[in-house]
């Protein structure tokens, strides 16, 4: 069986062009004398998705905030899209953040704004996009998450899953090159979680967006590692067995502030580390 065209094409692109989009080098950070990340290093290549696992308080969300420059590390270097985030001023970071989007754990939609205003927030604030274009791009972003009909609602009128999808629409409206997802399926029912995961896979497979995804749910990561988005049928489908290694998806597991695993699904299944085996069982 031949691998689905989109995956084969993507895998080839990644093989020929292994550009690193996110690079953590010996990064450490402590909060109130408690070391949360202790000299961690990893890389995310262009077009790839990396799922970050670890117990609560292991620093998963901190990694995303560090990558976006929302937090500064105590030591180490973080390079995102070729820019040293650790050496940038807040004003320069605002420029970089146009190319890097983040979906927060609890969506973080602005309560006082409608869905339309939330999704258009960046474009409105930048002030150099016409109202017609803003309207068009808001519709495009909301249609991606299939929530066009919620434009005039407020976040409080949406369900948890809908809020996450609006947060994704708000993030992708500027077509970022890197997406950071902080537990996008946390607290959601399996059906809604699957919808969110499908959107993440759609971003990965259709738009070649590089992603870091924090999650507690192993089944979500396994779904992403074993599925691809079929452009023709406009839905997520399981990969044929032989194509699994070609999916640009990897796992990063944290324990006690250290990276104890960084590899793909095959390597994860073959690991002999007792802690990891227990974690994934």
């Amino acid at each position: 069986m031949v691998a689905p065209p989109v995956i084969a094409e993507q895998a080839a692109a990644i093989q020929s062009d292994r550009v690193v989009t996110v690079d953590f080098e010996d990064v450490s950070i402590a909060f109130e004398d408690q070391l949360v990340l202790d000299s961690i290093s990893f890389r995310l290549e262009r077009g790839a998705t990396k799922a970050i696992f670890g117990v609560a308080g292991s620093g998963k969300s901190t990694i995303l905030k560090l990558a976006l420059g929302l937090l500064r590390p105590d030591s180490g270097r973080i390079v995102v899209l070729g820019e040293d985030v650790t050496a940038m001023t807040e004003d320069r970071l605002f420029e970089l953040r146009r190319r890097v989007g983040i979906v927060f754990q609890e969506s973080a939609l602005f309560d006082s704004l409608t869905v339309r205003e939330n999704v258009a927030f960046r474009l409105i604030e930048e002030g150099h996009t016409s109202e017609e274009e803003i309207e068009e791009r808001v519709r495009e972003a909301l249609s991606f998450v299939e929530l066009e009909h919620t434009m005039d609602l407020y976040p409080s009128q949406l369900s948890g899953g809908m809020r996450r999808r609006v947060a994704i629409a708000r993030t992708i409206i500027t077509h970022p090159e890197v997406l950071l997802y902080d537990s996008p399926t946390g607290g959601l029912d399996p059906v809604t979680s699957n919808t969110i995961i499908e959107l993440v896979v759609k971003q990965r497979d259709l738009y070649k967006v590089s992603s870091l995804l924090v999650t507690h749910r192993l089944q979500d990561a396994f779904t992403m590692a074993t599925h691809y988005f079929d452009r023709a049928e406009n839905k997520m489908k399981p990969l044929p067995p032989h194509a699994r290694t070609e999916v640009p998806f990897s796992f990063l597991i944290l324990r006690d502030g250290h990276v104890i695993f960084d590899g793909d699904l095959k390597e994860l299944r073959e690991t002999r580390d007792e802690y990891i085996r227990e974690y994934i069982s």
Partner: protein
Amino acid sequence: MDIELVSPSDWAKQQIKAVQDYALVGARAVANVFTGPRYFADIIQQADLIGVGSLPIVVLTGFFTGGALAQNSGVTLQRFGSLNLIGQLVSLGMVRELGPVITGLMVAGRNASGMASELGSMVVTEQIDAMRALGTDPMKKLVTPRMVSTVFMLFFLTIISDAFGIFGGGVASALFFGVNMHQYWSSAWQILQHQDVIMGLLKPLFFGFIISSIGCYYGMSARGGTQGVGRATTQAVVASSILIITVDFFITRVSMSIFGS
């Protein structure tokens, strides 16, 4: 409940850091007034919330404070046969001292708490981080408009409070001491010198800055979920009220040194 003991040096460091963080918030908010982008729509919206929204309480407290001042002063003045001075006493008391302080305290209670709870909720629900992630500086978008609006509106609220305070004093004087209203207004008006008005209207500029910067500082530094927001709200009201009264003392002293009594 476990009680965590903190060493005196750690406590001192925490306090110094809090003062430093507050100074940075205040300085950045002021610096942002002179740099773009400027959020005029947010300034107008906040001016409406802070100014127009506070109008009823400022009118009521001003009126009754002036009335109470007149009643208390009237008893003493009557004893010395100087009831004709009641307008002067109420007028000076309201314009120089009570008008600005009462207005400042009322607006602090209403708006410093509002700012701390609103911004604190935005912090704990990651909306502030989201705003930064979406390329907008929360200091420019949220803090500076609140500061500009509070300083501007408190100035006019104080004038209104002064006016209603003098009016309340007049009503109380007429009702309880039979003072002629025309005589009251003449003496209340004539006693006011430029320095009294300057001192009275200088204070709301400082108080407006204190209310907004303290409210925003505690809101932006809220930690620990809804409990943290509640704590930030209480601290904002307490700190801004204490600072208003303390700063009032020093402005009065400095003004009197400059203008004389």
